[in-house]
């Protein structure tokens, strides 16, 4: 890794607002974010390149070009459900598909040619160029190629230096956030005619519009006259993203990985920020109140907080009424929550609002603050906080009925299904949106569909014969 990249990584790993980093000893801080949990033969999770893609690829009108051999894109593209309300260029996969010859002679020429072709063909507002391990190892200078391409081709080409081998997905998220700070945010002023900056402009940081969940959030903003300047980066348009520094408030969702983006924006442009969530009524109310207060403090309509309270009351009443029929069917069911980070507690809160009992939640990748919140929600019962749970144990919990349902990411989906137990996707690959009041109703409906599906008793039913195939005495008799 270049000296500059090394310095950037070290800085990111000492993020003063990151509770994870603060909780570490100096020695652990020096080891960085990537060290924990990486045991050869027992590691799970994506690499830094994966993380960088998660954070930047939702810029829907940009062209995302992966410089590397085929594995990095060919095995991975088209695997997330970050939604768009317009352009679809971000969904196309672009790679230099490096060959053995490029490994021997260097891949910079190939990258230059690829940029030229891609820009001529698609005329994107910008290109994000992702570095990967092999060109990183042979020393391809993507920063220089991007600089040259930006000058000669007239389209911003932005280097994303997060090759997989420098660390985890989380580090890749952070590096991508730094790319936004260094190359994108603040590089354009809003058009005074078409897109004027206003007193209620806000950004949502680390909101990736998974399954199109922004559609459940922006109507709430609309009702209060709050304007989403941009999400970082769900459904984002490059030129709008460049004007993100004109927001009056930033909210960081579900990710300590992008705290540094909010902090830098506060330092540089004086934008206050807070951490929030849209999962569950309590969290939505908390977030809307924060927005209203912080905007009003900066000169927005002073009635905004009162209007927010009225909206919250109205929507909570309507939501409770809509939830009632589902809750009658799912109340008291036992859920195993196997996710991590912020969702360790925010989803617990949503599930409890729906009347479920959370028997355990995994606090992997969660901070001390996250753990504290989870513990508070779980009646201070330490036994209900889990770290990593091995697959055989997850299987046992579900098979033996300690939990009625597991909510997790796709990786552990089949642990539940092999135990013939209900499962719901709670991570980024999911197809349903659980954010906002309408999202909570969706979550209730999905839980009901899963918990009460007739396929589970059918799949669990014993065959009318024994292990050797001999008919059991009470079966097989003519009726």
């Amino acid at each position, binding site marked *: *890794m270049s000296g500059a990249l090394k310095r950037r990584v070290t800085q990111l790993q000492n993020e003063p607002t990151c509770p994870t980093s603060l909780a570490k000893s100096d020695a652990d801080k020096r080891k960085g974010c*990537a060290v924990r949990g*990486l*045991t*050869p*033969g*027992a*590691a*799970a999770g*994506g*690499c830094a*390149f*994966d993380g960088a893609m998660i954070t930047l690829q939702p810029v829907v009108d940009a062209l995302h070009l992966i410089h590397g*051999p*085929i*594995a*990095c*894109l*060919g*095995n*991975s*593209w*088209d*695997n997330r459900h970050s939604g768009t309300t317009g352009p679809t260029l971000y969904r*196309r*996969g*672009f*790679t*230099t*598909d*490096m*060959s*053995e010859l490029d490994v021997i002679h260097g891949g910079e020429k*190939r*990258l*230059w*040619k*690829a940029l030229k*072709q*891609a820009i*001529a*063909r698609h005329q994107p507002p910008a290109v994000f160029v992702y570095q990967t*391990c*092999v060109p*990183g*190892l042979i020393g391809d200078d993507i920063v220089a190629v991007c600089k040259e391409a930006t000058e000669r081709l007239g389209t911003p080409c932005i280097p994303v230096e997060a090759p*997989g*081998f*420098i*660390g985890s997905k989380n580090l890749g998220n952070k590096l991508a956030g730094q790319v936004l700070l260094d190359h994108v945010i603040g590089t354009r002023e809003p058009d005074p005619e078409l897109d004027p900056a206003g007193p209620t402009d806000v950004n949502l940081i680390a909101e990736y519009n998974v399954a199109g969940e922004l559609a459940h959030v922006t109507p709430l903003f609309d009702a209060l006259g709050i304007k989403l300047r941009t999400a970082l980066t769900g459904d984002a348009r490059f030129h709008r993203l460049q004007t993100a520094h004109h927001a009056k408030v930033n909210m960081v969702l579900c990710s300590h990985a992008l705290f540094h983006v909010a902090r830098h924006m506060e330092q540089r442009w004086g934008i206050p920020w807070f951490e929030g969530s849209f999962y569950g009524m309590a969290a939505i109310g908390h977030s809307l109140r924060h927005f209203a207060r912080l905007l009003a403090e900066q000169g927005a309509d002073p009635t905004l907080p009162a209007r927010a309270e009225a909206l919250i009351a109205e929507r909570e009443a309507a939501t409770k009424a809509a939830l009632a029929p589902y809750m009658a069917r799912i109340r008291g069911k036992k859920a195993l929550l196997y996710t991590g980070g912020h969702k360790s507690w925010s989803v617990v809160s949503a599930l409890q609002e729906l009347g479920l009992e959370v028997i355990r939640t995994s606090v992997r990748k969660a901070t001390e603050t996250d753990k504290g919140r989870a513990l508070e929600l779980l009646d201070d019962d330490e036994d209900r906080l889990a770290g990593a749970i091995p*697959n*055989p144990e997850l*299987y046992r919990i579900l098979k033996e009925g300690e939990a009625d349902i597991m909510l997790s990411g*796709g*990786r552990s*989906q*089949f*642990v539940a299904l*092999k135990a*013939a137990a209900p499962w719901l996707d709670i991570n980024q690959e999911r197809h349903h949106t659980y954010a906002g009041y309408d999202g909570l109703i969706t979550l209730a409906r999905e839980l009901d569909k899963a918990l009460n599906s007739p396929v589970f008793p059918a799949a669990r039913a014993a065959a009318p014969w024994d292990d050797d195939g001999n008919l059991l005495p009470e079966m097989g008799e003519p009726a």
Partner: protein
Amino acid sequence: MTALPRKSPSAKGSHAKALSENPLKMSPALGASLAILGLEGSVPLLHGAQGCTAFGLVIMVRHFKEPIPIQTTAMSELTTILGGADNLEQAVLTLKSKLGPKVIGVCSTGLTATRGEDLAADLKRIAAEQAETLDGTRLIGIDTPDYAGGLEDGWSRAVTAMIDQVARPNPGPRDPKRIALLAGCHLSAGDIDELRDLAEAFGLEATVVPDLADSLDGHLPPAWPKTTPGGTRLQDIETLGAAGAVLALGRHMEPAARLLEDRTGCPALVLPNLTGLTESDRLVATLARLSGRPVPARLRRQRDRLRDTLLDAHFHTGDKGIAVAAEPDLLAALVGLVESLGARITAAVAPQSGPALEEIKAPVTIGDLGDLEDMVRAAPEPCHLIISHSHGRHPAQALGLPLLRAGFPQFDRIGAQHQVSVGYRGTQARVVELANLFIDHPGDH
């Protein structure tokens, strides 16, 4: 957006083009991992950064809808500089103690291959130094750098490595009732079951290598499987040379079959394609000859049904334009099938070269789904259908054409592993599917 014309890609090699758009290709390490999953009690181990494994895991889980045991040596920048042998040894020992596999299939990646790691030598040393600890666990090493070839190449190298590193010379007599089937990556679990049934119809016992029908066929096992819950047993590969014959199913299985023939004298036959009437005839005739038995009445009836279906189908398939994109052996099978129904090939695209491309009469482009899209737009005659893996949905959407999914991955379908395309019954199923698709989407005729 307006699409500007691009230079037409060279059929000689994929690397004439600097930019791949909507890739068709996947990495050889992924192909090798899939093949390893066809061995009993196995776990693939990718020697590279953790992302190589994470991406491979996700794509396999999405296709099979099954838990997939696969691990990583978790190389970091530092270990890449210092050398990965320690990570490799630690990963092997961790897997041994945590999962107790019978086989660990180790695949190199771009990262470790670029650094020049000597995988074979490292594995040999680890196996020797840790012989006691690793008792009962076989290490198989496969060289699969990401920048050389694609999925089919990785699969082919993995099966060759299985033969090379496991199969023993055969001093004893040959068992004429036993046949070895080396199954290519274009065959589904359903295909393998069909082939085994066909062999049994002639009284032949088939050893399939690798056997995804026994490991990733999607069944509910009685307990949680830590490694593959089935697949080819190592001892059956050790004694594979004692079979009466070895059939290479797909041209990319030929090197492995030839290696077995050279080592054990087991006669090798190559059946490049098993889809279509003529191709099924060749398969059935081969089994009849090897077994010395007549063709059973039920197969003769299946053949008559297929002939009848071809007649029923031709009204709907004749002169339809079809663009096909697939790994070489699958491409040969699909192009052969649609041509036999009177359809036209608008475009035939392979992600990389492969011996099976010699079997295809239509011009083949080495390229990606972006090329396929361009070729359909530029074609003088209308195109009615795209056949490809699930990523084909991108050109299909852009062009407003239906997509028939074939091969790996099919992440937006369930049951892909049970799709049967071989023999009379499998061919008939695909013909019916195609004809019905055209009944629903007749196009502009």
